[in-house]
């Protein structure tokens, strides 16, 4: 058996162990070790991605060992195109976050090394949650991930950090417990139909009444909708993003929240195809509400971090809509969107974080005229903003357009309403751009320093990835497409053939 995935998960843990053995005083060494480990993990992931057979729709790098045999629980991991892409995103973001947030840990309650131990543990769990092919294993990672994030927000954040951390944790736990009820339901059903198992493939073959299926589906879906977050389960996100350090926010919005949308694909759709069809209209509606609502709230924010959080709510609306549109464009687009959103949010949060740490305030109106004072930083922020509003030529455009086109072929009304989101996106990006970067340089901003070399090195790969994938998304799409098409065809859907309006 190929144990690459396990080794990949062991790498960050190894880094964390080395860190734990370090003395508390040597903060710089801790940072270097953390950076080294995350880079190693990223390289390892890239090499796995190169070895991935793109046209093979079966899971690859499969591993399976009995874990709790009496419950039919296995330690089972494997990759398809979707999970590979998400793991790639996670491991690429991790070193960037470490490098970008080099000094983030210094205002924390605990030492620097603890910060990086938490980050590395989180990275390991994120890999695990995307790679798991056993529902129980997935759940374990899903819940256990909360703990490092909780301490990252509560211990190293700013402002009302502990309240935000608690809110985040309670929301997530609540969703997780609902999912636990559903998992128990699946477990019992599988026991009645040929032996207890948690294997995703086997569970998708279960027979169940439509009521049962609907209830179990809801258990999963609400958990994922909280995590994603979908309106109206979103109110934890702005608070969490407001309080967390920028790096943590990147991991929170960029990686952790993707577990929600990933879970929808991997579990809601595959395990409960019938219930999915039942609930699709509602979910599409919620997604569209999220898109528009998130955009409007973003426009109304005065705090830059909250603004970014609300833009993400809007973006997650797009992702969810793409998933449930049940077309190959929507589905591939949604997965690509997850990847792209990771980087565009990373860019926004990291640059915003640098701005905030220099200015000592996160209120948008405290900035002003930064373009003349700190041109590189201003450019970076502007670029991140353009990526967030899905400017053609940048990666998010491809995914957003695919989602819209994919949705339009099946749910034209939803797609049309969602498209209004792109105008609102222009507003919620350009308003802060104008207030923070343009206009006369406001008092207090005259002496801000521009990005340092370290910060430039950190943001450069993000910029390159966003640009590159904007013009040439094929490498990712070729990995995603087979998996996405597979999911849809399993559900019994195929892309709608071109149909004329109003007949001919």
């Amino acid at each position: 058996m190929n144990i690459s995935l396990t080794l990949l998960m062991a790498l960050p843990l190894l880094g964390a162990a080395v860190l734990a053995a370090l003395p508390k005083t040597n903060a710089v060494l801790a940072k270097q070790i953390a950076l080294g480990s995350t880079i190693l993990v990223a390289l390892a992931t890239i090499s796995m991605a190169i070895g991935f057979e793109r046209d093979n729709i079966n899971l690859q790098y499969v591993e399976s060992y009995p874990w709790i045999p009496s419950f039919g629980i296995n330690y089972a991991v494997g990759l398809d195109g979707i999970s590979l892409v998400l793991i790639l995103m996670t491991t690429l973001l991790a070193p960037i976050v470490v490098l970008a947030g080099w000094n983030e840990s210094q205002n924390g309650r605990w030492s620097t090394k603890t910060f990086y131990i938490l980050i590395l543990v989180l990275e390991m769990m994120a890999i695990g949650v995307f790679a798991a092919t056993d529902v129980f294993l997935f759940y374990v990672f899903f819940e256990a991930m909360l703990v490092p994030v909780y301490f990252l927000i509560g211990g190293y954040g700013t402002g009302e950090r502990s309240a935000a951390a608690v809110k985040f944790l309670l929301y997530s736990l609540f969703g997780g417990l609902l999912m636990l009820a559903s998992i128990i339901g699946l477990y019992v059903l599988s026991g009645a139909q040929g032996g207890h198992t948690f294997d995703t493939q086997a569970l998708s073959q279960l027979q169940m009444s439509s009521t049962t299926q609907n209830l179990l589906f809801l258990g999963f879906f609400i958990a994922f909708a909280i995590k994603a977050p979908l309106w109206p389960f979103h109110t934890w996100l702005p608070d969490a993003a407001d309080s967390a350090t920028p790096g943590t926010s990147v991991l929170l919005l960029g990686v952790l929240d993707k577990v929600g949308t990933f879970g929808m694909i991997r579990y809601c759709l595959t395990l409960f195809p019938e219930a999915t069809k039942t609930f699709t209209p509602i979910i599409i509606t919620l997604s569209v509400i999220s898109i528009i609502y998130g955009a409007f709230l973003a426009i109304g924010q005065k705090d830059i971090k909250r603004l970014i959080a609300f833009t993400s709510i809007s973006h997650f609306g797009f992702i969810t809509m793409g998933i449930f549109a049940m077309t190959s464009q929507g589905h591939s687009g949604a997965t690509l969107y997850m990847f792209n959103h990771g980087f565009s949010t990373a860019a926004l949060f990291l640059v915003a974080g640098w701005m905030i740490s220099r200015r000592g305030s996160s209120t948008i109106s405290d900035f002003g005229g930064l373009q003349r004072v700190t041109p590189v930083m201003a450019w970076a922020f502007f670029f991140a903003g353009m990526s967030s509003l899905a400017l053609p030529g940048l990666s998010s455009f491809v995914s957003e357009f695919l989602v819209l086109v994919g949705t339009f072929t099946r749910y034209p009304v939803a797609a049309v309403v969602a498209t209004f989101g792109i105008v609102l996106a222009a507003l919620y990006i350009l308003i802060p751009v104008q207030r923070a970067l343009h206009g006369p340089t406001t008092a207090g901003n005259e002496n801000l320093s521009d990005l340092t070399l370290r910060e430039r090195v950190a943001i450069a790969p993000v910029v390159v990835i966003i640009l590159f994938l904007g013009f040439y998304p094929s490498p990712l799409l070729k990995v995603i497409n087979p998996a996405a098409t597979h999911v849809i065809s399993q559900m019994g859907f195929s892309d709608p053939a071109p149909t004329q309006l109003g007949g001919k």
Partner: protein
Amino acid sequence: MQINNGLVYLIALPLAGAIILLLAGRLADKWGHIFATLMSASSFAVGLLQLSQMLARPAEERAVEQKLFEWISVGSFQVDAGLLLDQLSICFVLLITGVGTLIHIYSISYMSHDKDRRRFFAYLNLFIAAMLLLVLGNSFLNLYVGWEGVGLASYLLIGFWNQKPAYATASKKAFIMNRVGDMGLSFAIMIAFASLGTVSFSGVKEAVPQASTASLTAIGIMLLVAAVGKSAQFPLQAWLGDAMAGPTPVSALIHAATMVTAGVYLITRSNFIFDAAPTAQLLVVIVGAITLLFGAIIGTAKDDIKKALAASTMSQIGYMILGAGLGPVGYAFAIMHLITHGFFKAGMFLGAGSVMHGMDDEVNMRKYGNLRKFMPITFVTFGLGYLAILGVPPFAGFYSKDMIIETAFNAGGIKGILLGSAALLGAGLTAFYMTRVMILTFTGTPRWDEKADPHESPILMWLPMVILAIGSVTSGFLLSRGDALVHWLEPLFAEHGEHEELLKPIVVTSLALLMVAIGVAIAFLKYSRSEVSRTAPEDVSILTKIVRRDLLQDDFNEALFMRPGQALTSTLVKTDEIVIDGAVRGIGSAALSSAGALRASQTGFVRSYAALILIGAVALVAAIWVVTK
């Protein structure tokens, strides 16, 4: 179709210029402007080379394609990054790179005092690249990339002096109103894919015969929305006036000669859709007619020279849209007017820039006067452009505008009469406000501010003006000689049958010239005979006030979109906090208070605990009795 792997250089050269200048930062301050100009010029050279190759081929084989790479491919949604150079796009390529290069040259001098000149040239190069992508893309989606790319460049250039809040706001406004239009383009592409299964020009063209009219009409209307946004047509015209916040060369290049004409390009490029969707086509002409009047009316009351020219641009593009909406017979005339307009309007804008250069960046024409003495070259070039826009024979505008008016009359029935009359009226109004500009600026008595020091601009500035002026004089004649342009473009458009002529061409021409003469005369009477005050008179009719407020376009947008939008936003922000988050917090505090209440049940008295056990026992027995009954 033939393959030509050289097309990419058209875009790559200016794009490389932009990237290098942006990345190099201050290092490139010394040579950036020259480098950018060279990039633009090389692109022009490549364009000329392509033209010469194209001329060498027979008419049906002139179009060439280049597939760069597979861009987006998911299921049946297959879009390659591909370029298409045909007779239509070569016109644009040459216009963009040619006028673009001239404006680069002009800007070297115009922006020489600005310490961010390098950045300005980077943006200019970026614009050229994006605009070329717009006209070279071989599918609607590729076009879309260029479409938003020019929007971005326009945003950056309008807001080039964004340290002034009003300028920053203007750039934001332009971008957002453009996005509204872009939304239309998105819809068009989505509908095209959903109903025709393809988004490439060639694919859509092939699919049109099988498509339902409803689909095509929907696509056409959405394309029109896109065109309306980008070309500042009614009702999305409000941004163009504010866009004059950008440096004047920007106004000349982007907001006169090229970007704003992208809507015309889009409609012409999609001729096969509009030809099959009469309703959409009707909307196109309506929009064109309204805008040409709208812009002209606004132009009559503008004191800001650049805004007056902007209003004129709006109006002239209205003519082009009108022409493009008139079907196969009108496309070529729309393009012709587009090209001639590119020359004379760019020339006039550069002239305006030259004036401002000498007048300490003053834009209020009421503070000009008698400048012909001090700026002879500017006066002459501007004057040639003036004659061209009026449509005085044999200047360029005469050929192109006259054709559009004529075709409008020939559209048939009431429609033809209405459109033709609107176009005629527009010609008169144009004559009025342009004459007003000429009089206020170049004649009369000086009304200058103290700081003004009018002088002729340096050669780098007047040379492009001269070249453009030559174009303003000759282009119309050259393009229409033997219907050169019409025949050149013929392979792209559907055959058009002979129309019955409502009015003979000579009648139309005479009417048009008459209108022009009336307009000029009124302007002379009004402004030349009496002293012009340095401030705009306040005791004017309500109608004038409305026209001065741009026909209330901003008030309208504010009342209808901005304020309700802001109200909605703040309501939603409160709702989120009070209702949604409030519900969650409410559950939390309800749990806490109920916990407090339950906690009180623990009184500390052992007898009450015993009583609880006793009650529990009784309840249990009772429950058992009920359950087993």
